[in-house]
């Protein structure tokens, strides 16, 4: 029997990939299972890769470049960057997901590129999304991405872990987005900087895999390096038919050492919004009810999945988007788009007044497809509401769940979604 303390999920995955006993605070060089870049970061990564003198990818099957941030290209300068990516793909064998395929953080797990127990890096800060699938995935810059593409490894500081234990059932009309907005408000934008978050408890167990991804996606909004969860039967079922790799789930040890523990009582978490201009400026929806809105956006790597579209369509069925309100919908991937069409969700949303755009990141990151005007209020399912985020510095962005966005576009003002759910207040 060893008397050495047990390990967190982060310590275990990094130990396995570094081939040594890695503990919080250690700096290790570890093998990565996958490397991803998107069109805002890949061109710089490709340039760094070439300047490094790299001869080829460490493994072409383990590298993907996704054209999602400005997709299809709205400008000739962007078209040139996309060409750089396509040509790099042809030259090296890296998989290129071109326009219409979807948002990188949906595609990488959806296509089975990463499985539980993996270590992967992506040149995009929301790479932490796959923590919900028990993947130690973290965002890096383009030069780190280039080094990982060339060498198949990267240096990591093994993070300390904050354990977040969520117990109880979310009330009707409240979703995983509300839980993570509430948590961001509590921890603050740098509450988990240099650290990992590890989520557990009955609330997490009860959530769907898609809803869990919403939580891990926003780990970075608290500064975290990763937002990890256990892989359970639901996770493994989600992987059925998604590629050939075999999941190797990693559980934390019972005596793992955490630097902090944050208990959450989900039963008390009602719908939340993040007010302008920071994600940790979170508040219960009551504080902002009635705030007029000019635009609603449903989509992104946070909340553009099938379940999110279904929740919004459920509320909008037979109703109309208010006059004077623009409602933009971007499914997170082609597969989700097709599934949503087959289920009639797209029909419902478009009949209600939605403008559906190509699966991608444009409206969220402000490259195209819905840049709001000066002084306008926007309600969005995205993960960031920084000034300038949607392509203009002068609107006011509120972040919320798909249900809250749907309820709000109907009223033309921020509205409480609980009225549409069992136990609603009105």
């Amino acid at each position, binding site marked *: 029997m060893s008397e050495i303390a047990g390990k967190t999920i982060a310590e275990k995955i990094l130990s396995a990939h570094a081939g040594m006993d890695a503990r919080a605070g250690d700096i290790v060089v570890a093998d990565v299972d996958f490397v991803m870049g998107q*069109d805002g970061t890949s061109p*710089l990564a490709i340039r760094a890769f070439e300047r490094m003198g790299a001869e080829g990818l460490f493994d072409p099957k383990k590298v993907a470049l996704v054209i999602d941030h400005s997709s299809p290209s709205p400008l000739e300068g962007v078209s040139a960057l996309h060409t750089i990516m396509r040509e790099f793909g042809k030259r090296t064998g890296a998989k290129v997901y071109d326009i219409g395929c979807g948002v990188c953080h949906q595609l990488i797990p959806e296509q089975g590129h990463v499985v539980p127990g993996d270590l992967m890096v992506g040149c995009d800060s929301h790479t932490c999304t796959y923590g919900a699938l028990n993947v130690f995935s973290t965002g890096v*810059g383009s*030069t780190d991405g280039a080094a990982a593409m060339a*060498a198949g490894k990267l240096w990591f500081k093994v993070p300390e872990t904050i354990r977040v234990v969520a117990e109880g059932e979310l009330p009707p009309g409240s979703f995983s987005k509300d839980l993570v907005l509430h948590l961001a408000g509590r921890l603050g934008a740098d509450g988990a900087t240099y650290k990992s978050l590890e989520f557990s408890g009955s609330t997490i167990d009860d959530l769907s895999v898609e809803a869990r991804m919403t939580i891990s996606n926003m780990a970075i909004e608290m500064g975290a390096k990763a937002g990890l969860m256990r892989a359970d039967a639901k996770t493994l079922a989600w992987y059925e038919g998604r590629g050939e790799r075999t999941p190797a789930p990693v559980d934390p040890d019972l005596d793992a050492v955490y630097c902090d523990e944050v208990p959450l009582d989900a039963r008390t978490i009602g719908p939340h919004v993040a007010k302008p201009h920071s994600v940790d400026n979170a508040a219960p929806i009551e504080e902002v009810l009635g705030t007029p809105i000019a635009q609603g956006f449903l989509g992104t790597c946070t909340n553009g999945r099938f379940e999110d579209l279904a929740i919004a369509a459920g509320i909008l069925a037979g109703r109309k988007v208010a006059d004077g309100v623009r409602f933009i919908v971007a499914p997170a991937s082609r597969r989700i788009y097709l599934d949503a069409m087959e289920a009639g969700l797209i029909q419902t949303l478009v009949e209600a007044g939605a403008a559906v755009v190509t699966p991608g990141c444009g409206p969220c990151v402000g490259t195209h497809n819905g840049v709001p005007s000066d002084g306008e209020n926007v309600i969005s399912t995205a993960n960031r509401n920084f000034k300038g985020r949607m392509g203009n510095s002068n609107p006011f962005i509120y972040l919320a769940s798909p249900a809250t966005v749907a309820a709000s576009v109907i009223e033309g003002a921020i509205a409480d979604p609980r009225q549409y759910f069992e136990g609603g207040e009105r």
Partner: protein
Amino acid sequence: MTIAERAFKFGDDINTDYIISGKYKFKSTDMDDMATHAMEELDPDYFAKVKPQGGILVAGRNFGMGSSREQAPLVLIHSNTKAVLAKSFARIFFRNAINTGLPVVECDTDLIDDGDELALDLEAGVVHDHTKGIDVPFAPLPPVMATLLADGGLVEHFRKHGGFAL
């Protein structure tokens, strides 16, 4: 290495959209052009002020929070910003700065004001504020990061060693 420059002071939680807005990031890879927009959300004249003489950007907590865009440290480098001092950094920005060769130092920045004349001694772990006549100490970088910075960033490290030599 000692970096002697004027301080340009900013506050807490400076995110990467403030350092360089996403709307510029996606248009090209010409950093000299993009650098003209560095920090413009917070100070539209930042580039004009820092470019001719150089400067050290001084901030509060959580500098570089947000996206993974490496354009953030790159536009600072191309605007002639020689180093960034902050009470704390967001981790992706911190890595990107080291990887691109921009010195980043975690220290107490409360006593440093805009316009102070600073001398940053990376090896000794001290910032001399000549205007105030004070020294602000800091813990030197861990060896892995110090090696990458000394090599001029991760690309130069790879060129020199043919891969990771950490």
